[in-house]
Each structure stands twice: as structure tokens, then as C-alpha cells.
């Protein structure tokens, strides 16, 4: 049992922290938001240069063969700096599908572009009715010759506005809520029949609603088994949940730090408001919530390696519950302790709160995962 980072992991942490400390203060972030697509290509290239976009891929595929702990380190740092760039959509999700389910040809065709930062990806999964059920898929992929024709609508596709390539869930057989008959397809974003309506999300990121009308793809577009891709989807989405847990810990960590600094300097009644016990106790409760979340983020990272699939899924769901609760608490208290200034667009704390809030409803909220843990019989 060991919770320390290895020497190499510590170096990785120093390297990403260093990069973001230089390149990503809150004012610079505002400038990046105004760039095309709402994030900075220059930062993305820097992440590629430092090898961060190739982190989880095997060395044969041009990556570094890093594991979950490394992703946790990167995501936590990105949370702390409130990074806009599409790491989750491109490296964790799309990269994850290719890594775990892609053929040699698919990896060869796409991973170099991810690793060198030349292309970004998006995972088109959410539908109007599906909410958090990954198996609820109405979008269809009908066999035509060797290939498929995709029809349907996807919503709030993270990085969907800018992505060069989409990875789309679509049904090859069965009813809308059947667990079998779901396929996963690689679709160029500029394919004929793809219409994208992009928009900023509440947290300053960008997403798109995407319509697929008679989009034709070849047989080689399917990742893994086009008749049964749900296990792959669940696996990779679990990895994305773990990554979100780490990002949220970074967000909470920075939120608490910023809040404590603020109440140490803000004076009322002639003294720093941090000298008032009611505020101190709120801040202490934020610390407790953060540490519980940090523990569960580490737990989820390690749980990804559990052999028992049910135990693995339940552990990750439990982490998402803790993150959701802690994130809401820390975010809300951070605003409260900042007082009026916390309500302004100008102060950075509100932006942390908004990102934490969006994470809660990404890939299953607290209630959803609570139900999953219950249905699995709990943790004890």
C-alpha cells in the first residue's frame, strides 16, 4: 500500500505544473477563450511537445505507455489551472477508444495525429433521451454494402465544434435501450451529412449539437465489434469519469486555496474576515470535503486496475458520488466566502465553481451513481 508518486511521476507533475504556471494564469485564459474554437492551439502544441498528449499510448504506437496515475496527475493540474484545451475529449475518451478497441490500422491512422497535436477528437454519445445511460442509443448505423449509414442526433458533444474527427455511438441492431447492438464509429467531422451547431458551455468550454443525415462510412470505421461495443464504451467512459474526478480535485484544491487567501486579506469591521470562526469552520469543512474527494480520486485511479469488473465499476461510481458532493459543497462555499466579489465574472472563483458544476452532470451525476452503487449492493 503506497500513496506516494514515483520519481518519474513527480517529474511529470513538476513538468505540467511548471508549464501551466507559466502559460495559464487566469488573464491568459481569457485570451485563449477568444481564440478560434475557444482554446489555444499554441498551448495544445506545447502539451504535445512535452509528450503529454501521447502519455497513455503504448510505445509501439508512439506514446509513453503511462498509466492511470499519470493521467490523474495531468487532469488534476489541468483542473487547478482551469484548462480549456480538449484533453478529455481527445486523449482520454477518443484516444481511449482507439487504445483499447482500435485495430492496428485505426491506431496507425489516428494516434500519430493525436500525439503530435495536429488533430483533436470528440465523442458524440449523448442523445436527447439518453441522459446518463450509455446504452440508450437511438442513432442508427445501418449496414450498406461493406459499410454503414449513420442517422441521428447527438447533443452537447464536448469539443464537437472544433474536432477534426468524431467517434460516434450508433445502433446496428435492436431497440433503443438494448444493451447489445451498439457500435462505435470513426467519422470525419467534415463527412457529407454531418451538421454541427457549436456553442460555448457554461464553464467556458465548447460543445456542439451534431446531426448525422445519411452519413456513409466504410467497414473500417467501426471500432471493435460493431454489434457489441457497449463494454468498450463503458470501460473508456469509466476512465473519463476517473479523469474528471482528478480534474475536480484540482479545481477544489485551487478553489480552497483562493478562498483562504481571499478571507485572509479581505477586511471588514477592521479585521480580516478569516478571523471569524463561522468562516473558519466553513473553510475547514471545505478542506474535509476536498480530502475525502482526493482520497476517492486516488481510489478510482487504482480501482481501474481491479480484476473484478463489478467491483471496478462500483468503485468508480462511488468516487463520482464523492466528487459530486464534495465539488458542489466546495464550489458553493467558495462563492459564499468570497461574498459579492464571488458573484462577478471578473473574479476567477466563479469559473471554478461553474466547471465543478458541469463536471457533476457529465457521465452521470451524484444520484445516478448513487443508484448504481446501491444496485451493486453497496461497498461493504
Amino acid at each position, binding site marked *: 500500500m*503506497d500513496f506516494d508518486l514515483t520519481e518519474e511521476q513527480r517529474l511529470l507533475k513538476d513538468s505540467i505544473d511548471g508549464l501551466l504556471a507559466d502559460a495559464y494564469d487566469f488573464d491568459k485564459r481569457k485570451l485563449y477563450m477568444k481564440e478560434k474554437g475557444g482554446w489555444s492551439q499554441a498551448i495544445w502544441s506545447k502539451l504535445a511537445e512535452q509528450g503529454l498528449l501521447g502519455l497513455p499510448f503504448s510505445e509501439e504506437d508512439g506514446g509513453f505507455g503511462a498509466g492511470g496515475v499519470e493521467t490523474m496527475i495531468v487532469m488534476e493540474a489541468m483542473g487547478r489551472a482551469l484548462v480549456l484545451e480538449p484533453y478529455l475529449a481527445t486523449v482520454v475518451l477518443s484516444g481511449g477508444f482507439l487504445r483499447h478497441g482500435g485495430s492496428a490500422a485505426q491506431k496507425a491512422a489516428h494516434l500519430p495525429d493525436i500525439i503530435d497535436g495536429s488533430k483533436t477528437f470528440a465523442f458524440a454519445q449523448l442523445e436527447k433521451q439518453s441522459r446518463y445511460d450509455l446504452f440508450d442509443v437511438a442513432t442508427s448505423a445501418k449496414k450498406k454494402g461493406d459499410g454503414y449509414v449513420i442517422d441521428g442526433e447527438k447533443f452537447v458533444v464536448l469539443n464537437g465544434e472544433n474536432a477534426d474527427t468524431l467517434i460516434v455511438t450508433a445502433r446496428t441492431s435492436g431497440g433503443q435501450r438494448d444493451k447489445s447492438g451498439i457500435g462505435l464509429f470513426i467519422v470525419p467531422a467534415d463527412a457529407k451529412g454531418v451538421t454541427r451547431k457549436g456553442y460555448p458551455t457554461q464553464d467556458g468550454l465548447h460543445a456542439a449539437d451534431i446531426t448525422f443525415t445519411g452519413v456513409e462510412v466504410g467497414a473500417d470505421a467501426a471500432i471493435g465489434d460493431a454489434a457489441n461495443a457497449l463494454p468498450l464504451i463503458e470501460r473508456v467512459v469509466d476512465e473519463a469519469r476517473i479523469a474528471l474526478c482528478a480534474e475536480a480535485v484540482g479545481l477544489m484544491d485551487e478553489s480552497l486555496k483562493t478562498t483562504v487567501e481571499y478571507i485572509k486579506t479581505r477586511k471588514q469591521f477592521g479585521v480580516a474576515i478569516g478571523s471569524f470562526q463561522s468562516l473558519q469552520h466553513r473553510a475547514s469543512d471545505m478542506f474535509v470535503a476536498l480530502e475525502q474527494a482526493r482520497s476517492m480520486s486516488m481510489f478510482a485511479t487504482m480501482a481501474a486496475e481491479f480484476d473484478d469488473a463489478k467491483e471496478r465499476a462500483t468503485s468508480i461510481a462511488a468516487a463520482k458520488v464523492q466528487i459530486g458532493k464534495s465539488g458542489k459543497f466546495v464550489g458553493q462555499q467558495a462563492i459564499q466566502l468570497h461574498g459579492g466579489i464571488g458573484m462577478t465574472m471578473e473574479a476567477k472563483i466563479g469559473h471554478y465553481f461553474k466547471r465543478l458544476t458541469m463536471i457533476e452532470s457529465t457521465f452521470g451525476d451524484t444520484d445516478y451513481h448513487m443508484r448504481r452503487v446501491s444496485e451493486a449492493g453497496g461497498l461493504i
Partner: protein
Amino acid sequence: MDLAFTKEEQAFREEVRQFFKDNVPAETRRKMVEGRHLSKDEMVTWWRILNKKGWGVSHWPKEYGGTGWTSVQHYIFNEELQAYPAPQPLAFGVSMVGPVIYTFGNEEQKKKYLPRIANVDDWWCQGFSEPGSGSDLASLKTKAERRGDKWIINGQKTWTTLAQHADMIFCLCRTDPSAKKQMGISFIVFSMKSKGVTVRPIQTIDGGHEVNEVFFDDVEVPIENLIGEENKGWDYAKFLLGNERTGIARVGVSKERIRRIKELAAKVESGGRPVLEDPSFREKLTACEVELKALELTQLRVVADEGKHGKGKPNPASSVLKIKGSEIQQTTTELLMEVIGPFAAPYDIHGDDDSNETMDWTAQIAPSYFNNRKVSIYGGSNEIQRNIIAKAVLGL
């Protein structure tokens, strides 16, 4: 980063678990499961079994009878002990006064007291809180005046847990009334059988008798019963309170209670189905389990850190363990109340006698719920713990 215990640690867990199976008296375990009070004899019998095995004072230095276990082994031992469940060693002797004596006491005191603590030949109690000194402990007024080769002690202590069983007390007494409040306190030990010591029971809201008021009226104590230096008692008290860390979360206790909740909630029906299948009950239980898992991991982080980097200074993370651990313990007793619903009501005095043998399993649930309100108050109330975090961690 790795969650797995080593093969040796797993083997150790098996060994400990087997030892409890073979050696904890069945009746003691049953009472623990049902939340009943144990008699003094039952506790002492078990502690002597533990001591005979060499595990009575496991965390003490080897030269005084400790085991030399790693932090992880201590963690495993505690977890298994709490989860079995079996009584934990008497904290007042083993975790509190023992370490103060072997750290600050002289050779004679070590020889005299330590073996008797280990074998519970003396039952120790703690003389810290006073009627006017709870969270503000340093304001205590109990006086020890030097008269020849004796201390003359006058004053009153309160919340003295199980003083009715005690042979010895370790006591914070004011020895220099002119000094600043933390500076004039000494750490003195003496017999509860001394002339002038009176113990008066306090009945708590669960109907039980765990705590007492203790009065000192011109109690004569030999001068050599001072531990360490005169007027340094506050330092020893802080040392003592910071010593008990990883057990404080009581993860094993809560785990055992959750297992019991599930067992009972599967039997008791509500609306034609087991309470366990009621979605709103289920959600509360799951929420508690998630909090407990997070707490367990937080505790493991502290244990791993101590194992790697030594104990060093008191870790402020122990305040997190205390706050969350107590909240979860309270939640588990609340959930048990919900399971039995209206059958929580019948009242029966419990105590150290065994006259409640025939009561069914519902009898202790309400008292245990009432009793567990104490856990966020004792050992530094949760509000004091928040003060500690604000000051020591956040720098407020």
C-alpha cells in the same frame, strides 16, 4: 501508488482474524454486536488474553512490551479488532498514560506502572475535563499543592469515563496558580482508592453509566507521583491527545455496523418489502458507505505517510478523521433507528448487569443512537477539530 497490501500483510491479517475467532469470548462479541455494555470482568478477561498473546500494548516500544509492527500492521490489527468486533484496549492506560510514562517518566515509574497497564492490573481513568473546563481545558482549576513529601489535591473532574472501575487516575492539576494558564499545570498520577476521592455517577441520555464526576478533597499523593517535570503537564497532555490518530476514525466499527444494518434491514419489512429495498433508505445507506470508503482511504493515506516518513508532528489530517469518523458513526446509529422504526420505543434500563439477557435485538438500538451523540463531542469536539484545521492547515 498502489492499494494492494503485501503478501506478508495479508498473512498478518489472516493471523489476526483467526486469533480473534479463536480467542474472543463469544458472549463478549455478541454484546458488542448488539451494542450492549460489557462488564468490567468481560473487558479485563479479554484484554488479558490479548496481553498474553503479546498484543496488549502493540504500539508501545518493544522494550516495554510493544510489537514493533509497521504502521500498516497496526492499521490492520485495529481494523480487524473493530470489525470482529472485540473491545479495543483500554485507551486511558494503553494509549494515553502509558506513552506519557514511557516518554516522560523516570525508570522507577516505568517499572512500576507499565507492566500493570499492559495486563490491566490497574484500570486507569483520565482526569482532564472539569465542570468549567471542557474545550478550554487549560483553564482547569483542580489544585495540587506541595506539602512536605506530598501533593495535596483539591478540586473536581468530570466526564471521567468508567471511573467506577478505576484503580488509578492520571490527572492534570494546577501547581502554579500565578503562571499563564497553560504553564502552571502538572501531570500527576494517583490511586483512586486514596482517601478523599469520591466518584459520583452521571447517567447519560441512553440511560447508561459510563461517565462520572470525581471529587478530590485533600487527597494526599506521594511527591514521586509527578510524571515528568513540574508545570510541564500541558505539554504531556498535548502529546497524549496527539498520540491517538489512526484509530480515531473507527472505520472498522462503522463497517461492522453497516453490515449489521444490512442484515437487519433485509429482515424487517416496510410496505411489503424489506427496508433494504426501500429506495430512500437505500440511498441514505449508500451515501454513508461512500463516505466511509472515502474515510478509509483518507486514513490509509495517513497510515502510509506515517509508515514512510515517520510519525513526526501530530498530523492535522487526524482532525479530518475525527470529524468524518464521528459523523459516520452517528449516521450508522441513525440508520439502525430507521430500520426498526416504531420498535425503537420500548425502554429498558441497561447497564453492566446481565439482567437484559432476554431482550431482543431491538433493545439497544435507541440507546446506542442516543449514546453516539457523544462521539462528535468527546476527544476535542468537532468544532475544536475545525478550529485546528483552520489554524494548523489553512493558516487562518
